């Protein structure tokens, strides 16, 4: 039942070599430009993978859903297909695909190996150039069927956009059920598309703000289980939990450092204010980074670990500040009209995502790391808590409406909002790094 996080020794990739891959610029078919107006999604035909009974169609379906949700691709309805692919290794009749305006075509096959593993292979064709663009094959055990499809979708996304994909990833979040004034909250984990949900806590205590370790095997979160709210670590695989530090008061708002060696968090002072501390998980030594008579919280490291962005109300109302990882040079960077919180540094290092409250609305936006270039991606009555996809092009957050929160993703253009299906209400999403 926990096999999904074991190292995937069974997945191996190799190029399917027969046709020479013609080198072409990565941006040849899809251009990613967040500042450009409408990005026209690329029409793509994804055929059912041959063989493997229903599995072939299922893989094609997952790849199609992934690419469609990215907003960059417009998968063509299968009923429009003219050529019926019978040999996925042979060149298709490109004319048949050009006629339905499929600029890219995906063919593939899936089969069972003698040892029980699944072998899946795909080929990506540029129909207008009449050439194969990419081809790979993967081996996986039964439990990883969906992962194979996500890995293929990532490969196609990367080949066509020049950016890393983000489909073979997971999300930890808080599953919420019950009435608003008696909400049951459980730690949960799922694939980025909402599949394979697993619960990691029993709902007896309030749990909040889970975040992935860069090694993907561990999360840090906050729980009320001891009475006083405190930060914990949880090994996803073994279920082993441990308290992070032994502080007298509340600890909250935890996140890992990019190297996974530290947890940075807020610690409540006796005077009722909160300051930011980093704790080294090996030596257990703690370093105080802020010492203000204010609320300092929601710290998030830059991907190189040299800086920390955080929320503080030291200037009166909550705003976003940046400091060195040792607490030096604390500088306010948000100056817009409103209250700013939940800053999260992009894994690419170029942007900071945030929640902004202004005019009775909650907005999700991004700004450059010096605070300039603010762009609002989504506005709503109640929404907060962005988390970055590992490629830094998509954000997920939660929006409260119709009685409870649900998860929503939006890309950096702000135009492609997608709801993430969850069985119950869901909040506090945190995106994993790409799986390996």
């Amino acid at each position: 039942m926990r096999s999904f996080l074991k190292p995937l020794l069974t997945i191996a990739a190799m190029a399917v070599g027969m046709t020479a891959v013609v080198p072409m610029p990565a941006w040849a078919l899809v251009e990613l430009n967040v500042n450009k107006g409408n990005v026209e999604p690329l029409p793509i035909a994804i055929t059912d993978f041959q063989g493997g009974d229903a599995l072939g169609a299922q893989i094609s379906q997952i790849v199609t859903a992934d690419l469609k949700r990215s907003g960059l691709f417009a998968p063509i309805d299968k009923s429009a297909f003219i050529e019926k692919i019978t040999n996925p290794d042979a060149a298709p009749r490109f004319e048949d695909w050009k006629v339905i305006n499929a600029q890219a075509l995906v063919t593939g096959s899936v089969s069972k190996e003698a040892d029980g593993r699944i072998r899946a292979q795909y080929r990506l064709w540029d129909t207008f150039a009449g050439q194969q663009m990419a081809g790979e094959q993967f081996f996986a055990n039964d439990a990883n069927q969906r992962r194979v499809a996500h890995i293929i979708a990532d490969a196609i996304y990367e080949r066509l956009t020049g950016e890393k994909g983000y489909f073979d990833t997971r999300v930890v979040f808080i599953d919420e059920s019950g009435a608003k004034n008696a909400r049951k909250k459980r730690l949960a984990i799922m694939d980025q598309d909402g599949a394979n949900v697993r619960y990691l806590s029993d709902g007896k205590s309030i749990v909040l703000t889970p975040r992935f370790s860069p090694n993907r095997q561990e999360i840090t979160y906050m729980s009320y289980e001891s009475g006083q709210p405190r930060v914990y670590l949880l090994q996803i695989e073994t279920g082993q939990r441990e308290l992070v530090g032994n502080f007298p008061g509340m600890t909250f708002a935890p996140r890992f450092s990019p190297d996974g060696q530290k947890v940075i968090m807020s610690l409540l002072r006796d005077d009722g204010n909160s300051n930011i501390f980093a704790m080294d998980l090996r030596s257990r030594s703690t370093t105080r980074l802020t010492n203000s008579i204010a609320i300092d919280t929601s710290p998030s490291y830059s991907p190189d670990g040299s800086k920390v962005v955080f929320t503080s109300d030291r200037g009166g109302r909550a705003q976003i500040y940046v400091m060195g990882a040792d607490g030096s040079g604390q500088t306010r960077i948000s100056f817009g009209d409103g209250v700013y919180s939940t800053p999260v540094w992009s894994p690419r290092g170029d942007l900071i995502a945030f929640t902004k409250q202004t005019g009775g609305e909650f907005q999700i936006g991004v700004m450059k790391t010096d605070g300039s270039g603010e762009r609002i991606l989504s506005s709503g009555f109640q929404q907060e808590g962005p988390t970055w996809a590992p490629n830094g092009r998509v954000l997920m957050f939660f929006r409260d409406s119709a009685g409870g929160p649900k998860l929503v993703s939006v890309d950096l253009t702000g135009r492609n909002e997608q709801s993430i299906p969850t069985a119950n209400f869901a909040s506090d999403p945190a995106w994993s790094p790409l799986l390996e």
Partner: protein
Amino acid sequence: MGRIAALTRNPVMIALVAMLAIAGCASKKTPNSAADLGLNGAGAATPGSAQDFTVNIGDRIFFDTDSTSIRADAQTTLSRQAQWLNQYKQYAIVIEGHADERGTREYNLALGARRAAATRDFLVAKGVSASRLKTISYGKERPVAVCDDISCWSQNRRAVTTLSGAGS
């Protein structure tokens, strides 16, 4: 209905709400304590009991949006609380700090903590021994009022003084 839902976490308040419903005279005013509702004449609560504290003194105070200052009405309530707590010294006290939903989760945890601390400090200044007082923040995790407008948010921005059983 929002108000009734708002109070269901507190059994004493449930009883009061039931009484109100029977009387058919739901007050427009935020019920702060039974004293405010003119129901303390019933004499149901034994002096010095937890019920006495909740019903006759008022166990909670309210805050302005994104504020941790103790309002004038809250000072009156807390002064009453301090007097009662100084009279009945057998109780240990936990002050819960809460925020409304119009803030982000982590910031509101900090805000609730600060409200609880401000309440604690006021009680200490009024002579309640600091050693009897603990605080906890629930941020916006435990709303008592669940509508999506100002009438509910104002009830959720609160600090609740709870008696954690007769202490030593």
